[in-house]
């Protein structure tokens, strides 16, 4: 049993390594373009709403706390607490996705969606002195924004589904103080997805606000 726990945990860590490389590819490409077009990238980040980004950061950090407490409850065999904490984690995960949805909607209204014809119009951005040149570079940033947050949101959706599964398993009394491997490893996954966001938030939302320092 202990060997299975060890194997499963190691397996999840190795999986998270591949996830790091997966996101790492995107982060690397993002850094290169940010280095190529710093001004355009800084200006475009003003179209992000740091209030929503910060809210989501907070939501995720709290969800990580409830997740960590859930693992602790599982380890101690506290069934009721485990279920409540899992529900809270799911709730915060859904909050995050909801806020992300609000933001995406705002971009849609502002015509900041370069992926879809008819929803990309950057000419009304007053802060651009050289419209044509910046508009194209801004398009690349928005693509990165949608890819990176999109892939992250996808991971959140998977995470919420995972937590629902764990919750129903917990309700059926699958876990006890000596067997809680699924709680532990899905917890690892959840924390990983949170940490990705911790990097995404400053990279995508806050560059324009540190422009003077660059």
């Amino acid at each position, binding site marked *: 049993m202990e060997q299975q726990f060890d194997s499963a945990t*190691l397996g999840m860590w190795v999986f998270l390594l591949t996830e790091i*490389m997966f996101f790492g590819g995107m982060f690397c*490409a993002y850094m290169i373009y940010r280095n190529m077009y710093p001004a355009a990238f800084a200006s475009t980040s003003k179209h992000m709403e740091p209030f929503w980004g910060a809210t989501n950061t907070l939501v995720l950090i709290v969800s990580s706390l409830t997740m960590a407490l859930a693992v602790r409850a599982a380890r101690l065999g506290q069934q009721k607490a485990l279920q409540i904490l899992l529900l809270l984690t799911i709730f915060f995960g859904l909050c995050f996705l909801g806020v992300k949805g609000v933001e995406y909607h705002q971009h849609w209204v502002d015509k900041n969606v370069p992926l879809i014809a008819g929803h990309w119009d950057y000419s009304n951005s007053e802060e651009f002195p050289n419209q044509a040149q910046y508009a194209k570079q801004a398009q*690349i940033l928005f*693509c990165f924004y949608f890819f990176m947050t999109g892939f992250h949101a996808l991971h959140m959706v998977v995470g919420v589904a995972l937590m629902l599964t764990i919750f129903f398993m917990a309700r059926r009394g699958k876990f006890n103080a000596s067997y809680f491997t699924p709680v532990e490893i899905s917890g690892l996954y959840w924390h990983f997805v949170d940490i990705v966001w911790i990097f995404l938030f400053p990279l995508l939302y806050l560059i324009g606000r540190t422009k003077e320092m660059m």
Partner: protein
Amino acid sequence: MSTVLQDPQTVAETPNYLNAEYGWRSWLFTKDHKRIAILYIISITVMFFLGGIFAGLIRVELLTPQGDLVNSDTYNKFFTMHGIIMVFFFLIPSIPATLGNFFVPMMIGAKDLAFPRINLLSWYIYIAGAIFALAAVVMGGVDTGWTFYTPFSSTFSNTFVITAACGVFIAGFSSILTGLNFIVTIHKMRAPGMTWGRLPLFVWANYATSLIQVLGTPVVAITLALVGLERAFHIGIFDPAIGGDPILFQHMFWFYSHPAVYIMILPGMGVMSELVSCFSRKAVFGYPFVAASSIGIAVIGFLVWGHHMFVTGMSMYASLYFSLLSFLVAVPSAIKIFNWTATMFRGSISYATPMLYAFGFIGLFTIGGLTGLFLATLAVDVHVTDTYFVVAHFHYVMVGGMVLAYMGGLHFWWPKMTGKMYPEGWAKFAALLVFAGFNLTFFPQFIAGYLGQPRRYHAYAPEFQVYNVLSTAGATILGLGYIIPFIYFVWSLKYGAPAGNNPWKAKGLEWETTSPPPTYNFETTPIVTEEAYAYATHKKEEHVG
């Protein structure tokens, strides 16, 4: 480690993984790593012959200097599909997913891999990827080359790039899951006494391969996802018209695909250590160095990708760095070659079929590796970039190395997997055909390439015809050399002589159980009391693990 030879008749009757259950459901829903390995063997054999058909079409077209069989567009699709199928659907899964899947757990004395369900899932993912790749073929092919270079692939190509890229993307996850499974299995499931210093070198090689699969594959996945999105939505990440950088694609692609070259050779090197040691009746010379060189190749292999890009206008300093590291990565490969040779020195060598393939590997891989150094040299590389010299180089490594090792390993372990012997005479004949046919196919390409014949054209200057005729003739022989083993392997399933538990008198836990092995591999968990390759009974060498 004594081996009790049983009466062949009783061996055939013993319960084993093949007769434990019957019916297609018992195969498609199996969690037995041995059955999954068999599923993989069947799937990659299909892909191998499919890729081989495209190779044959290429060689037929190149028989004459004019483009008279197919037009250039069709030819582009031929070499692209040949590359995609052979690289992603044959070479990468070839040894890890088949022989590795079957023997890594057995060699460390485990009942199965750590995650049997994930193992089965990886096969289904592979099949899903293969279906996408085949769909791309059926719908009309892809013409970007297996490397999917942008902006051609993302903007200009009018073929089914997204379908093929999806196939590669999906198959990548099968590779990741196999690697993940191996890493955890090797860490956590070794039998008592099976220390890291006693692991067979095949296991070390698969461990190093798994590291690359786990760390490299996700990068190509995200890269191909970006190409697909770029193609679908024209968003500009790789499009210079918008400000994107197509060279970035090459960096990200080769960051995976160069290490992937080592996914395609390291397991072959692992097989080689087993073969050379068994048929020389000696422990592998310098075990710690051979084991460490696998890890060394995996690590340095991640730092050399830029040598595919010397002519892209990359910074000169980057080129110097990549050139230097490409020379360095040759060192661990050379250590292996020298150590196998030293293993054979004063060994009592027998010339069974697997050993013939091992000899072939040493010769051909050495040529492939040394011509790799030509290509790592900046000035020479500029001269031969995108010529047949490069084509010949990597075929010496991929086919002369990996395919020969795979064939050698398949012959070596066939008796264990099926309980039946293959016909030795035919097998030797086929091994010689493969060796001769291979050299006749690819050696002339070195010359044609050095003289300037560019790769990936369906027509060429008439003075190169003699090399191409030789090459096509060789490919015919090579093809025959693959078909013969296919026939006698299938034949041997029914008519082969019973193999017994250990026909080669080989060392290693996999030979201590019955042939074919029982469902859980061992009657009781084995306890390991000696080093790997303890062939010399009169003197025990002390190895430092």
